[in-house]
């Protein structure tokens, strides 16, 4: 689960990391009020769109303001803006920092090494993927011991290799703090970009101001599998950015991802669901979704999956592909028959059920006049043909 910058900063602050003060505003008036409280710090505030997608700066979602009038004006421009299809509904207002130098520092789960990786770069403020592609030697990687955790000497080594020797104590505290934030919250990723040396508490033009190291931006991704033991994290799920279909899928324990095609897919098992999408594409169609009904799905979950697929008006045909193991084919067939009885619009459906109780499923489906298929490739071809005849019919 991705969380907003403001929530990420709150989690960092809770672990004692240095994060300059901020406020969240949902209207230009709130932004103005926040700015009037924060402007005294450095004479300038930064106003940032709060959306869970990257590239906010490039899209014009991050702007400076030097007065409360200007803050209100800027917030008015950013609120309601579309960034990669997401409507901006809130902004973060923070005192603008007088940046001396920017760095990148993150704690990530390294799958291959099966360890937590502390990753840093003195090339801060740009996407780390870009640094990795263009200047891989500029990235410092240090693995935490899987049983003992990140040691002080490792955090010192990171600080020295990034050239943060002058800020050693702060850099070590931040490095260790990132790993702690990750562990305490069960995060997959805790990223500070930029981590910045700023002048005088961030005050621009404050002569002789002491330099300090602060976290200017924060990105945290939480492990969905661990949400059960962090009940307070659920409140950080942003309903503004979760499509109703996604919330509905989550309620029914269905793994669902919306795509742009016309062929709805209902499959049991993640690998097989991906394969079904791939074969639809190979047969000349475009999948409308990824959908895994999970193991042992019964009729009610099948019906819920059908509603999710049909909620997308673009869907012109549905491909059901079930390989029964724990899941019983006849249960799925009964679910499909019931779902079709309830559904609001009729869309051609191609059903393939093999494995456990496939014969019972076949006779149920035959009685109910479903179109069936034996192999996966055949099912994909039939679904693509059905969708094509639907669009041809629609055009005529």
């Amino acid at each position, binding site marked *: 689960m991705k969380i907003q910058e403001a929530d990420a900063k709150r989690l960092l602050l809770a672990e004692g990391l240095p994060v300059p003060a901020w406020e969240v505003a949902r209207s230009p008036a709130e932004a103005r009020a926040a700015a009037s409280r924060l402007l005294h710090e450095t004479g300038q505030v930064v106003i940032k769109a709060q959306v869970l997608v990257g590239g906010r700066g490039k899209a014009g979602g991050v702007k400076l303001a030097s007065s409360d009038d200007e803050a209100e004006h800027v917030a008015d421009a950013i609120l309601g803006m579309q960034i990669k299809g997401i409507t901006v509904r809130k902004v973060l207002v923070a005192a603008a920092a007088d940046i001396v130098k920017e760095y990148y520092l993150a704690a990530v789960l390294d799958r291959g090494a099966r360890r937590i990786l502390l990753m840093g770069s003195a090339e801060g403020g740009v996407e780390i993927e870009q640094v990795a592609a263009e200047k891989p030697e500029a990235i410092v990687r240090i693995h935490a011991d899987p049983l003992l955790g990140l040691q002080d000497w490792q955090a010192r080594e990171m600080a020295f290799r990034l050239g943060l020797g002058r800020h050693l104590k702060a850099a070590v505290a931040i490095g260790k703090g990132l790993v702690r934030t990750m562990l305490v919250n069960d995060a997959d990723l805790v990223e500070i970009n930029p981590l910045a040396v700023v002048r005088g508490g961030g005050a621009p033009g404050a002569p002789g101001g002491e330099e300090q190291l602060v976290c200017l931006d924060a990105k945290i991704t939480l492990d969905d599998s661990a949400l059960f033991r962090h009940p307070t994290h659920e409140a950080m799920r942003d309903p503004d950015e979760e499509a109703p279909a996604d919330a509905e899928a989550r309620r029914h324990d269905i793994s669902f991802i919306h795509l742009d095609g016309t062929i709805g897919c209902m499959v049991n*098992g*993640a*690998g097989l669901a*991906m*394969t079904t999408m791939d074969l639809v*594409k190979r047969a000349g169609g475009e*999948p409308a979704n*990824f959908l895994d009904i999970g193991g042992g799905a019964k009729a009610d979950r099948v019906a819920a999956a059908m509603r999710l697929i049909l909620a997308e008006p673009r869907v012109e045909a549905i491909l059901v592909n079930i390989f029964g*193991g724990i899941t019983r084919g006849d249960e799925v067939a009964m679910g499909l028959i019931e779902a079709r009885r309830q559904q609001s619009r009729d869309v051609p459906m191609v059903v393939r059920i093999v494995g456990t109780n496939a014969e019972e499923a076949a006779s149920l489906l035959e009685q109910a006049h479903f179109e069936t298929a034996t192999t*996966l490739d055949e099912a994909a071809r039939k679904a693509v043909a059905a969708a094509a005849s639907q669009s041809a019919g629609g055009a005529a």
Partner: protein
Amino acid sequence: MSILIDRQTRLVVHGLTGREGSFHGGAMLDYGTNVVAGMTPGKGGQAALDGRVPVFDTVSDAVRETGANTSCIFVPAGGAPDSILEAVAAGIGTIFCITEGIPALDMVPVAAAVERAGARLIGPNCPGATSPGRAKVGIIPASIHREGSVGVVSRSGTLTYEAVQAMTDAGIGQSTCVGIGGDPIIGSTFLDVLRLFEADPETEAIVLIGEIGGAAEEEAAAWAAEHLADVPKVAFIAGRTAPEGKRMGHAGAIISGGSGTAASKVAALEAAGFRVAGSPTELPQLLRDAGYRG
């Protein structure tokens, strides 16, 4: 021969008295697997599966009383990491963890502890393994298999069934079929299992079934190019149409920052001499094309 499990396997099922444990425990027993013990704390002294299998309070009791050497874990996500460590402490050498949804960070110290003890972990979030005609551990349906000499290793469940069924239908049997699991942090990797197949005299060809996310397929491909050069090798990769940045069901199936794509895996496998199928149904023919005569 086979890898990981065979007629010498003496299996203890963690959570045998639970719903999943008893259903699949019964199927394993019916298949002919030596299910010698169950483990459910507080139910020691009982007998499960119609009185056929004794239940113990601890894994070490099961090992001492029955000579169990392999574990199969059906314990819920919150307790599964602990269950793996209990098996390690009891001296179990091969541990299958079927449990889905274990927090990834829990597995970091557990995987390290398994490694340091010299034990072998398959999973979590895996369907287990079958050595057809000898033993099956986990949840893979028995009916899809046929005895033979193709080693199958996969990150997926039902997709593996699909591929194995296609092989069996074409008359191609399996030496062992292993599902390594779809989580970000797993015990044995593709590479670990390929090493076992390389050392198994009865495995004459390899089928590798991967998916988007991570770089384990690429790592295995590089090793296979050198060590399995003369072995017929075929592969299938799921997720060619998966969008970037979305978790495709499996916690580990995600393309991030442009890495972990199907294209990169297909390219690495082809460069290593694998024939890569466009559909699981093509795997049997590709095995034949690669020179497999079993």
